[in-house]
């Protein structure tokens, strides 16, 4: 706590002494570890401790961002001087109104002390158990086991003072032999909920000991597991659910708010406080996150805003600002899709001939206005015949409009899963999507991966 108070006092001093019209400071500290394994052997095992200060100064409507991990920065005065110099050479940002003022932030439990006790030795012991378990089935394990504790501070000169400590654990597991592979993952703020036995079981079930068959490209009924659905939802969020894309007329929501765009079984929203996801109750401007519904029973409804995009429309921020400088827009990072009535087993049983997809790989945007994406299946793609998962098939490429796909939903699973890429570039900031499985009609597979 002494460290916390000292840091808060330091950040307050920066805000008070800054020579700008408005000032914001964000401090992100990280104490993390990541253990990678391949072919049931630990080959990379790293630990990091870092702290980054991001200063945003507004001077006559000019915006400057400076970032430093020298903590405390060698000279705050030098930072101020540099920022003023950069501000003065810019034309004014007329659309910028103001940084946000303070609002009450709900209390959400995001930190579990047990994370601090996850030593390298304990992690390796967990992995040894895993290696033994899959060895018993003649398989190998590859994957990563990442854990960290992060502290986020957001303060500004209008009185915002937000602080959150959070922990997270992400476990990716690929179980494989020569013929195929299966995938399972686990992500949580609470490390004690990791059940390595059931994770190994889930991944192992997807490995079939028979060679993959090749199926012809074309349209198929498909069952998409939550891992696959989560990836599609993330890209929808990036492309169209936020105000910047809408204001720049490059969102698929343009001119369509209020219209039924997808099947009525589809409800997609963002909720930064829901404990089923990876909650953080406020954004990088210190604004509490509002729940925003994008598709309400298939009808296009809402958008996420930060202070800049909200200011342009005379609205209030919904609490979706990302770390400055953010030129991509207030992309939602706590996505959920509502579950349906069926179990995954029932969904499979209802398919006469179709494809079962565990997850996608390297999905990318082909056509933003129709949300056309392409990507490959990976780690468990199967042919379904007469309601049963039969043969594993060679990985397939899809090229498909996700909006059209969501119009062809046949059923949505009751079960939902928190999925996360867990990949961290530069600063640790893990996001997740809570998704059900989907049964869709006419999924267009455009190619096969085979030599």
């Amino acid at each position, binding site marked *: 706590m002494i460290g916390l108070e000292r840091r808060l006092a330091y950040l307050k001093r920066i805000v008070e002494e800054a020579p700008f019209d408005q000032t914001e400071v964000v401090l992100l500290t990280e104490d*993390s570890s*990541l253990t*990678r394994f*391949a*072919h049931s*052997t*630990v*080959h*990379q*095992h790293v*630990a*990091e401790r*870092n702290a980054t200060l991001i200063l945003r100064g507004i001077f006559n409507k*000019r*915006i400057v*961002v*400076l970032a*430093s*991990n*020298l*903590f405390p920065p060698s000279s705050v005065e030098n930072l101020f001087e540099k920022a003023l*110099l950069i501000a003065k050479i*810019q*034309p004014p940002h007329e659309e910028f109104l103001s940084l946000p003022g303070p609002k009450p932030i709900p209390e959400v439990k995001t930190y579990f002390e047990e994370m601090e006790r996850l030593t390298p*030795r304990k*992690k*390796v*012991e967990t*992995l*040894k158990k895993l*290696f033994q378990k899959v060895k018993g089935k003649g398989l190998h394990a*590859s*994957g990563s086991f990442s854990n960290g504790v992060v502290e986020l501070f957001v303060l500004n000169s209008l009185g915002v003072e937000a602080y959150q400590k959070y922990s997270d654990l992400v476990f*990716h597991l690929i179980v494989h032999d020569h013929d195929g592979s299966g995938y399972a993952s686990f992500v949580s703020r609470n490390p004690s909920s990791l059940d390595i036995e059931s994770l190994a079981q889930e991944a192992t079930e997807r490995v079939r000991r028979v060679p993959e068959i090749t199926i012809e490209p074309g349209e198929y009924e498909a069952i998409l597991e939550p891992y696959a659905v989560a990836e599609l939802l993330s890209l929808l969020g990036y492309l169209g659910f936020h105000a910047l894309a809408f204001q*720049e*007329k*490059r969102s698929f929501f343009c001119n369509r708010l209020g219209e039924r765009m997808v099947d009525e079984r589809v409800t997609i929203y963002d909720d930064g406080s829901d404990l089923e996801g990876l909650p953080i109750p406020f954004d990088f401007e210190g604004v509490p996150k509002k729940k925003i519904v994008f598709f309400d029973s298939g009808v296009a409804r809402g958008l996420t805003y930060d202070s800049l995009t909200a200011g342009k429309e005379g609205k209030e921020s919904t609490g979706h600002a990302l770390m400055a400088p953010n*030129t991509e827009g207030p992309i939602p990072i706590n996505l959920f899709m509502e579950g349906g009535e069926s179990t995954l087993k029932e969904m499979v049983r209802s398919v006469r001939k179709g494809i079962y997809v565990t997850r996608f*790989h*390297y999905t990318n*945007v*082909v*056509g*933003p*206005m129709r949300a*056309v994406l*392409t990507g*490959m299946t*990976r780690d468990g793609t199967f042919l379904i015949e007469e309601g049963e998962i039969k043969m594993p098939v060679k990985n397939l*490429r899809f*090229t498909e409009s996700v909006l059209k796909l969501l119009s062809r939903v046949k059923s949505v699973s009751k079960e939902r899963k928190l999925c996360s890429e867990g*990949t*961290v*570039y530069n600063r*640790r900031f893990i996001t997740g999507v809570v998704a059900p499985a989907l049964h869709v009609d006419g999924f267009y597979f455009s*190619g*096969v*991966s*085979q*030599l």
Partner: protein
Amino acid sequence: MKEFIENILDMAKLKKVDYADIRIVRRQKEEIEVKNGRVEAFVEAEDSGFGIRVLFHGAWGFACSSKINKREMERVFGKALKIARASSRAIKGKVFFPPREGKVDRYRTPIVIDPFHVSPEKKVELLLRSEALLRLRPKVKLSEAFMDSYKTEKIFASTEGAYIEQTIIECGAGISATAIEGSEVQVRSYPNSFRGNFATRGYEWIEELELEKNAERVAEEAVQLLSAKPCPSEVTTLILDSSQLALQIHESIGHPIEMDRVLGTETSYAGTSFLRPEMVGNFRYGSEIVHVFADATYPGGLGTFGYDDEGTEAQRVPIISNGILVNLLTSRETAPLLGKQSNGTMRADGWNRIPLIRMTNINLEPGTWTLEEMIGETKEGLFLSTNRSWSIDDRRINFQFGTEIGWEIKNGKLGDIVKNPTYTGITPMFWRSCDAIANRDHWQMWGTPNCGKGEPGQVAHVGHGTAPARFRNVQVGIMKNT
């Protein structure tokens, strides 16, 4: 600093580690983005810290911190050792790390003008002037200009006596026009999409890019795309311009030849490779005219440096000769599996990441054709330029790319513009169908500053030198059915 480093390396020797190295890295970054007449982002960032890698009892451990002082270094060394000791309990075999004598040297990117010594005014003015030219076309609704500069100063020292100091300077710039009409959105960029073209050069590189000179053409093409016909769906002859071919090389040659992917140690995130070590020396990767080098020495390449982050000197090595795979990208640990020594490709994204096998400059050697001859001798096909989207499977077999623009080729001449062009293929089949590569006059380096790999994620800056090339029997127009 040297004293702190020696203290750690002495401690490592006292603890009888198999090997240890330390890297101290300081990076400066400046990113400027101009959009629709205003400065959207002007960011200055500095980042420094150190990382210690230890090989102990045959297992690796790595720990790092942003606090550079003697006490913290000792703590971090202890943590790295603890990690290695723990990891040694879950390995199948001890890591073989071939011993060698460490080098003592210095390297600095040769530049004319340090981009960090150029005034912010000058940079912002250039971007605003270039971006304003894009807006002369009313249908261009988003006009953007970018300029990024990086300076990395690093010290590498090891228990083998290495002490290498390097300063790497990089910069790049680009412009982009987005034309919008109704639900039609079309983008054109120069010199490349995703923020431009980058090099290990000084500000003279930015000046040579001539952003303003190209702005009006870029805007005009973006507007033309709004009413262009869609890319046909067919199997045809494809000519790729050098910027798109650079990404084709990146995804379908550069990544599959990474030895860590070949060995399966990147399975959990980036994926593996369709290649196996025993294919080196006999696998036909491409047609006989396909010659590829990994060249970390090419002046100005974004993957150019003095030494990699294991202290191995930068090299130029053949990867594909006469279409046959002859080598892979290797590290000190993996090269012995091919009976070779490291070809110096281990690079880390800063002090807080371990070095991984990364592309350097993966260059396709020029051929003998002029671009005009290549188009002139193509009866029917497409000429595609500037990447818009990319995707490839986890073994790097099935790829699909989209480009910003395409032109029909009819009877040896460029014809109408086509919008939303896409093409797909299978890696070795595609490269085996290459029947013409343009000559040295058309050859240029492209910098890719956003190559992602590893966990925690790492971004590498890599380069690709290439000239336009022609490929036969390629499936184009994948979007038609959507």
